[in-house]
């Protein structure tokens, strides 16, 4: 939505400042960015409506969300499989009307809820990204085991998270209220490798 008087507050306001931290290396072993520009909506197919839903999706969204814990999409929007017939839809840098638009497009074949403010997502890259994340993520992050576009909903050091691989980075979405504790863990885990926040 347009945002004339109200100022949106980034979830990490006051918590993080861009730059290098941890061990001093010429190149940071871990590169972290906070993705504040994502619009997120949860989408769940209505009972018995799967076929119609697929048809509608391919017609209006020009892609059919894949089943299973994988990421599928159409370039400007993607769908993360978080359960049977359930996805988190993501769109970058929209106008705040994402969920409403999806709801309109998919009604009455799917239940849509806006989650844009519910999650904060991080992108973690660099040579030591895997070793950093291994300190809390109970997933085999080896490329063969967790490939590009794989998705997992899991528990990261006592914090629920949605994890996926996109453009050679690991993306982790956590609920907004946890973001302080999550950042505390992530930054501490990355420190030994030398890290940079962009």
């Amino acid at each position, binding site marked *: 939505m347009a945002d004339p008087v109200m100022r949106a507050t980034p979830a990490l306001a006051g918590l993080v400042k861009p730059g290098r931290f941890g061990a001093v290396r010429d190149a940071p072993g871990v590169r972290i960015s906070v993705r504040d520009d994502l619009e997120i909506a949860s989408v769940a197919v209505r009972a018995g409506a799967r076929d119609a839903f697929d048809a509608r999706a391919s017609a209006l969204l020009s892609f059919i969300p894949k089943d299973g*814990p994988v990421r599928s999409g159409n370039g400007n929007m993607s769908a993360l499989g978080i*359960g*049977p017939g359930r996805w988190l839809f993501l769109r970058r840098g929209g106008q705040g009307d994402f969920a409403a638009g999806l709801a309109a497009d998919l009604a009455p074949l799917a239940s849509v809820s806006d989650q844009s403010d519910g999650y904060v997502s991080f992108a973690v890259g660099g040579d030591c990204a895997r070793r950093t994340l291994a300190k809390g993520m*109970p997933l085999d992050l080896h490329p063969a085991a967790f490939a590009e576009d794989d998705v*997992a*909903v*899991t*528990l990261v050091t006592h914090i629920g998270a949605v994890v996926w691989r996109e453009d050679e980075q690991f993306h982790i979405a956590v609920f907004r209220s946890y973001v302080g504790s999550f950042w505390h863990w992530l930054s501490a885990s990355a420190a030994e490798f030398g890290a940079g926040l962009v």
Partner: protein
Amino acid sequence: MRIVCPFCGERDGEEFATIGGAAGPRPDPNAPDALALFHAYVHLRDNPAGPHAEHWYHAQGCRRWLAVTRNTVTHEILSVVLVRP
């Protein structure tokens, strides 16, 4: 314990919550002996040493309820399916 969630794949038992034995279908509340039926349904358990039918909830994953058959002596998991496909 490692549980293979039909949706998420293999995960540590830590991600799941179980409420114990999977009691049969919920009794008919209008049955004449509904009280006795519900008492048994809610309170009485088989609790066998060996294969055991259980309900597990993938609380930290896909949030589906799973019907699991698990050996309570070896902890070996014999089968896992979504309760509601």
